[in-house]
């Protein structure tokens, strides 16, 4: 168990090994470990971000859907309104038309009545002349009594 040159040789070998390890072994492995740690951290962050984005997308979709629903309801309401308007207008038109037709019918009836009355009057005049002829048993000169007959007819 002698202390000798072995000790110094071992010190030198130790120094060389530590230097080698410090230069060629430790840094590359440490670098890889750090890189992997960064990678994993990034991956986790990306996953987190993805989840957030998904959540945002879901919210957006919900909002969009809500907006679409509101719009659809608006459209239906508008259509309802328009329908009512159209109905009212149609009703008004129809009433107007009916009124007009009724007026026209009234006028025609009036006209017809007047004409019938005129005809009746004339017929009555002729009838009256014939009756007078018969009463007088003599031919009445129509022309001689025309004025008389006209005034008579007018009184009918």
């Amino acid at each position, binding site marked *: 168990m002698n202390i000798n040159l072995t000790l110094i040789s071992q010190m030198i070998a130790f120094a060389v090994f*530590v230097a080698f390890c410090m230069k*060629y072994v430790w840094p590359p492995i440490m670098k890889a470990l750090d890189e992997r740690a960064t990678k994993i951290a990034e991956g986790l962050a990306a996953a987190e971000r993805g989840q957030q984005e998904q959540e945002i997308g879901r919210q957006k979709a919900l909002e969009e859907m809500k907006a679409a629903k509101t719009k659809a309801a608006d459209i239906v309401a508008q259509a309802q309104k328009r329908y009512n308007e159209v109905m009212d207008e149609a009703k008004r038109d129809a009433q107007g038309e009916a009124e007009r037709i009724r007026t026209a019918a009234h006028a025609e009836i009036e006209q017809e009545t007047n004409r019938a009355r005129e005809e009746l009057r004339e017929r009555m005049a002729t009838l009256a002349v014939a009756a007078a002829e018969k009463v007088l048993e003599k031919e009445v000169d129509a022309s001689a009594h025309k004025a008389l007959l006209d005034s008579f007819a007018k009184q009918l």
Partner: protein
Amino acid sequence: MATAELTASDYIQHHLTNLTLGWLPDQGLVFAHDAEEAAAMGFWALHVDSLLWSIGLGVLFLIGFRKVAENVTAGVPGKAQNFIEWVIDFVNENVRGSFSAKNDMVAPLALTIFAWVFLMNLMDLVPVDLIPWAFGQFMGLFGADPHHVYMRVVPTTDPNITFGMALAVFFLVLYYSIKVKGVGGFVGELTLHPFGKFGLPANLILEGISLLSKPLSLSLRLFGNMYAGEMIFILVALMYGHNLVLDLGGGALQLAWAIFHILIITLQAFIFMVLTIVYLDMAHQTDH
């Protein structure tokens, strides 16, 4: 393998002698043939076995890690990368937990210590006689006497190895103490606490002991644990080759001790690493 011509103490002695290369006055540069010759070589000798195993295992560790580091990917890791990353994460966690200053050298240093010491300790689990016996037979082919060919395969049972590492850590502690606090700050730390400037000699003795105890405790703890562990394996191995009962008992003991030793191997590597981190952290602390 306690053979007939070897006594138990010869056997243990053989196992505790390093393959020593050094100068002998009468023979020049040779491998020591026994413990006396090894001691006679003095300081300018090398424990070739300790150094070869130590450096070999260190290179093995670096090649293994470097291979993974070259093909490292930030994507899905392969099996080898997974394992290496697990080790590195473990070391990094410890460094971040104990070391508060900023120094890019501490974590690779801690990794090197942990992996290297672990591998060196792991050699203890190789059956004690296997490699020395094979090496002795191999050298016997070249005409050497196998009984005088030594081979210790666990570098951490050689105090040169543990002291070498602990001293390197100690020099780092001194270097960073002076770099961070300046010479004045470091000297002040050694002399002005805990009793103020009037208790200077007492402070110096206390702080000096606490400073010097760092490399000592670091190296002796590792050395002591591994040496004792190896010793028990050697003692258990002495039981073999007598009769069936002793063989079976030895086998059971060796297995039990080996399983328990796995814990010690890992724990000692871990303690060496953590203490190094803590000492260096203390060197970086400016407020004492």
